[in-house]
């Protein structure tokens, strides 16, 4: 199996404070990798280094190598915009744009000029909504504001929006943390289904969720990668004592 993402010796700083220490890990293609750990352990920060989202914070600084398809995304001259098109992201809180449902999904297509015609655009939007399992719920109100959707629908809209630009990797930052159990289940089913076409990295504080959706799991603590193994091994027979304590709920 080829590795889609390879991270080696990554350090990360907010100003003088170091948030990540010497992280090395690889993400295999078309698999789901979950990042777990107590809050503040750096899992979200690490996720955001993978599409250079941390660039928006002026004092943030990354050191080390992150390659996607063998190319170091921190090399000078890297086109961050192209990188982010290739590496989509879904956020903790759904963040639809103040536009219609259709335009929310169409935005990324338009901005990256992916479509060949208006009909093609419509088709792509429709496909993305299908892939995000949202189509049946919104097909009659595509021109209505995205803010009218429920929380779970908004989150799936954000997934559709990310899918529409045809990324190869999707980063998900606790995508179901603000949702009720039924909406959460829908998102989880979606993640498992998307694995066929996408490489997915998902941050979660919910260990059951990690065990349900992921192939591999990385456990972080205090900015360090404690253990990275197959999900089954992490949850049944971890190598590290710390991991065991965490997944069995002895702290956290």
């Amino acid at each position, binding site marked *: 199996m080829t590795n889609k993402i390879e991270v080696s010796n990554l350090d990360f700083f907010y100003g003088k404070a170091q948030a990540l220490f010497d992280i090395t890990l690889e993400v295999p293609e078309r698999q789901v990798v979950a990042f777990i750990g107590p809050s503040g352990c750096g899992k979200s920060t690490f996720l955001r280094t993978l599409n250079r989202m941390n660039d928006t914070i002026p004092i943030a600084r990354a050191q080390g190598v992150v390659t996607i398809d063998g190319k170091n995304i921190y090399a000078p001259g890297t086109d961050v915009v192209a990188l982010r098109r290739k590496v*989509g992201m879904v956020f903790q809180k759904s963040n639809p*744009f*103040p536009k219609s449902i259709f335009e929310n999904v169409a*935005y990324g297509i338009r901005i*990256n000029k992916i479509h060949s015609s208006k009909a093609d655009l419509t088709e792509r939007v429709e496909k993305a909504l299908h892939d995000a399992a949202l189509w049946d719920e919104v097909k009659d109100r595509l021109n209505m504001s995205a803010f009218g959707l429920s929380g779970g629908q908004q989150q799936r809209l954000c997934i559709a929006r990310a899918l529409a630009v045809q990324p190869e990797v999707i980063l998900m930052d606790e995508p179901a943390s603000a949702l009720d159990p039924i909406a959460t289940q829908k998102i989880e089913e979606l993640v498992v289904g998307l694995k066929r076409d996408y490489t997915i990295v998902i941050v979660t504080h919910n260990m059951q969720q990690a065990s349900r959706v992921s192939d591999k799991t990385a456990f972080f603590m205090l900015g360090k990668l404690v253990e990275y193994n197959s999900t089954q091994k992490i949850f049944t027979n971890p190598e590290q004592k710390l991991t065991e304590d965490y997944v069995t709920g002895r702290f956290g």
Partner: protein
Amino acid sequence: MIDQRRIVNAIMTVTTAACAFAVVALLLLILGYISYQGISSISWQFLVETPKPVGEGGGIGNAIVGSLILLGLASAVGIPVGIAVGTYLSELGSGWFGKTVRFVADTMIGVPSIVFGVFVYGLVVVRQGYFSTLAGSLALALIMIPIVSRTTEEMIRLVPDTMREGALALGAPRWRVTLDIVLPAAMAGIATGAMLAIARVLGETAPLLFTAFGSRFYNIYLDEPMASLTVQIYHYAISPFEEWHAKAWAATLVLITLILGINILVRIVTRRRY
């Protein structure tokens, strides 16, 4: 002891309430008096005619048109520039340059409007040798820029960062994020700020006195003096003629209706949204 403290408490509560209601009562008295004095002189002729000598009637038609032209030109410059400055301050202005601009803009809001008139007089009127619509509009635009920029900045800051990140994560460059997502999201607030700025300069007199100057005729030329409601009110008010005083009240009623109308409208619209 306890009783004395309670009494002081009660007295202070009543006093502050009395002050608040007194101030509001003053507002209502002023507005009521304007309506009472103004309504009787308002007629169709008054609204469309130009000023005439005492005893011959006349109105404020050219002044209304003049105010609208001055305001339109001032807004055409002041609002876009103000929005651009505000956008810069909120999206890019975290460094020393942004801080300086923010502080200066903030402070310019406190500079008396008549000073802008003096400035534009020296900058434009002296050089051209005549009063003009253009000079008046420029003075008003300069007053608008800092006001619009500060409200724009505050409104843009209300747009959550997650929305910006959502667009960035799709591969949108920063400028597209600002134009496509951030500004539309803040548009209602920005429009509110712009409307309030318009209402503010609609009531300005001092910066027009020696820029647009005033005129007794309908005029559409930018290089000629231009009438305005406020300057016309001033001239009517300080005249010794009772007939003109009545016109001052009527013109004031028109002006106040426009200004308070904008203020109240803006309040209602924003109330419904939040």
